[in-house]
């Protein structure tokens, strides 16, 4: 038994040490669960000859990991949080890379009748009045903060919905699973939705408003705050992410024949 | 090492006196039998003399230091304690503890296995054998180190006649080979068969310590008389 164990350890130790230069990037689950990272990262790794380790967590945790210096850079989609992050000096700047859209998912029979709303605010007003379930991320992620922003714009406190307002505190994918189980409405980013395999009875009921713009940005962790970060390699990664090649790859990423991300780096 | 002396030995638990005060002198020759009814304190006294119990008062003395004496003693418990190992491993155990070489230990174990008639079963798990077989192993295991002092606590209490005789024969043989035996029993017949001297215990007190003949001829106390007549001793 013990001999087997030692063999295992040796094999895996070999594998670990044979790897190229390591960089750690915390990304939000919506970036990963959309499948874009699987599409993009292998090219990046080959071109730059680095081993990019992705740690997929919620926005809050990503920011925390960046603050603690446990990652070399973060890729998130929550502008107010990002600006605060830069203000406190953990990153020297934020670099916009690409955007996608948020959509409102709901049951096929659309009991809240939001499908033909004139605009996003009207759709949410209908949701506030309808007697149907609404699942909220509840985790102060980028998506959750967007949802809060919309409720505030129509001056409505979603808690007034009562027990039908389901705050889950989970990642996008898990929240969608719950929405499917409850046959509920939920705000989701389009890419995660299209790539999600458990769609149940839900479909996109509303999309296309400017307010549903979802910006992803790259924030390298400041070497001043954490001297051990791989700043050189992070600079290369940033350079690659804003390159023509990345632009092509991002814009050509299709789910169900639809483009979901749009490159907008400058 | 001898004589062994118990001086003012007393054991009490939570203010309840179990045995004592006891004063005894055990000489080297012959088999000494500790006789008494159930509950008279035989087990407690034996364990106390051997050092398995803490004394509340008094002391136990040998002519050599107690730590030197410890290496020369062995104990057979009323209910045999078998290691979860084979018969051979159980027998060889005391030798292994003394770091005696494996080959010597194995040979000795085999010799004793034959003496107790268990040579066919030496590779079996000891705990799976019968009560009599386990007790025989316990006796053999106690004698394998050729101890100068062997304590036995009612070793044949629940055994059949044949096994009882076999063990008694081993004990007689060991005694004549230089091992001092102090054995407790409530079996009068066994006492008659084996004893040179008898220590009669009642209610935790030694009421008599004399030769077997004297004890049988002149029972020294009411309890001793009751015991000899087969009455229940209260």
């Amino acid at each position, binding site marked *: 038994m013990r001999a087997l164990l030692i063999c295992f350890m040796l094999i*895996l130790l070999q594998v670990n040490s044979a790897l190229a230069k390591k960089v750690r990037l915390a990304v939000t689950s919506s970036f990963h669960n959309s499948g874009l990272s699987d599409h993009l990262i292998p090219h990046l790794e080959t071109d730059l000859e680095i081993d990019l380790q992705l740690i*997929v967590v919620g926005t809050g945790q990503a920011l925390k990991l960046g603050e603690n210096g446990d990652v070399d850079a973060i890729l998130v989609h929550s502008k107010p949080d990002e600006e605060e992050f830069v203000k406190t000096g953990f990153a020297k700047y934020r670099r916009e890379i690409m955007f996608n859209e948020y959509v409102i998912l709901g049951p096929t029979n659309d009991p809240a009748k939001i499908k033909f709303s004139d605009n996003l605010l009207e759709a949410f007003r209908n949701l506030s009045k309808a007697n149907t379930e609404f699942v909220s991320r509840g985790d102060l992620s980028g998506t959750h903060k967007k949802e809060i922003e919309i409720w505030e714009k129509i001056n409505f406190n979603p808690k007034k919905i009562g027990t039908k307002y389901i705050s889950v505190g989970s990642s996008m*994918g898990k929240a969608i699973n719950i929405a499917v189980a409850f046959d509920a409405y939920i705000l989701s980013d389009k890419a995660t939705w299209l790539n999600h395999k458990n769609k149940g009875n839900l479909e996109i009921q509303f999309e296309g408003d400017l307010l549903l713009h979802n910006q992803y940005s790259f924030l390298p962790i400041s070497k001043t705050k954490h001297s051990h970060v791989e700043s050189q390699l992070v600079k290369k990664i940033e350079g690659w992410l804003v390159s023509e090649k990345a632009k092509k790859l991002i814009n050509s990423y299709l789910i169900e024949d639809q483009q979901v991300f749009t490159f907008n780096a400058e | 090492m001898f004589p062994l002396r118990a001086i003012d030995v007393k054991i009490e638990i939570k203010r309840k006196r179990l045995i004592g005060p006891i004063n005894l002198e055990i000489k080297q020759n012959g088999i000494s039998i500790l006789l008494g009814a159930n509950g008279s304190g035989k087990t407690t006294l034996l364990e106390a003399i051997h050092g398995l119990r803490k004394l509340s008062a008094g002391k136990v003395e040998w002519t050599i230091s107690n730590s030197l004496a*410890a290496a020369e003693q062995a*104990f057979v418990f009323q209910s045999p304690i078998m290691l979860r190992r084979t018969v051979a491993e159980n027998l060889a155990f005391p030798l292994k503890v003394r770091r005696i070489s494996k080959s010597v230990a194995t040979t000795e174990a085999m010799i004793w296995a034959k003496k107790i008639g268990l040579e066919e079963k030496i590779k079996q798990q000891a705990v799976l054998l019968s009560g009599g077989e386990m007790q025989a192993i316990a006796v053999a295991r106690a004698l394998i180190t050729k101890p100068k002092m062997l304590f036995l606590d009612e070793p044949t209490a629940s055994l059949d006649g044949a096994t009882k005789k076999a063990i008694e024969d081993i004990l007689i043989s060991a005694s004549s080979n230089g091992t001092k035996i102090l054995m407790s029993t409530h079996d009068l017949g066994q006492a008659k068969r084996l004893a040179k001297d008898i220590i009669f215990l009642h209610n935790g007190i030694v009421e008599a310590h004399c030769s077997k003949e004297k004890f049988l001829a002149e029972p020294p106390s009411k309890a001793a008389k009751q015991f000899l007549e087969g009455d229940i001793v209260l």
Partner: protein
Amino acid sequence: MNEISQGLIQAFWLVLSFDSELITISLRSLYVTLTALTISTLIAFPLAAFLAVTHFQFRQAIIATLNALMGLPPVVVGLIVYIIFSRSGPLGVLGLLYTTSAMIIAQVIIITPLVTSIAHQSMQELWADYRNLLISINVSKMQSVGILMWDSKKALITASLAGFGRGIGEVGAIMIVGGNIDNATRVLTTAISLETSRGDFALALALGFVLISLAISVSFATHWFGKTERGGLQ
């Protein structure tokens, strides 16, 4: 229900096709948990034996604490280990976060109380039986610890398997300290969590069935291995 049968079928094909990613994460799962288990037993077994054999003032308190620690929520352990090994934490310089080493450390903390408690339970019972014999034969405390561990082999195997089960199915702690990084720290349980969050229940279940089979295989292998060692007895 359809997903369960889908999952079973997918599991079957995954294994048959020797899917390389499946093999890698399965091996990694085994590596993390088996390493953690080995370290854990090296701590737990002697500790449990020591606690069984010695009586000192804080013994009861330590045993009670160990029993209570069995209920430690793994995710809390993960969080604490993360804080300690984070770059901003006291042991951050070691750079162990997001490596399998951190996962192993977390699992050792989670598994050890369980293995110790189970081992101790058995060894305590065995000691109650052995105690008088071993003291009588003048076995040292250290030797007693070794004897208890050896004679409790079967119970120790059970304790190990319990620890293995706890570790192989654990996800909360290793998710936090390992990060579920593709090609680095992803194991079966974290992969299941990922596929669930992607809504791919069939694949998640498939991985789950692989995990269950792995656990069962380890259990069978352990028992088979144990039997051949002892010549098929007990």
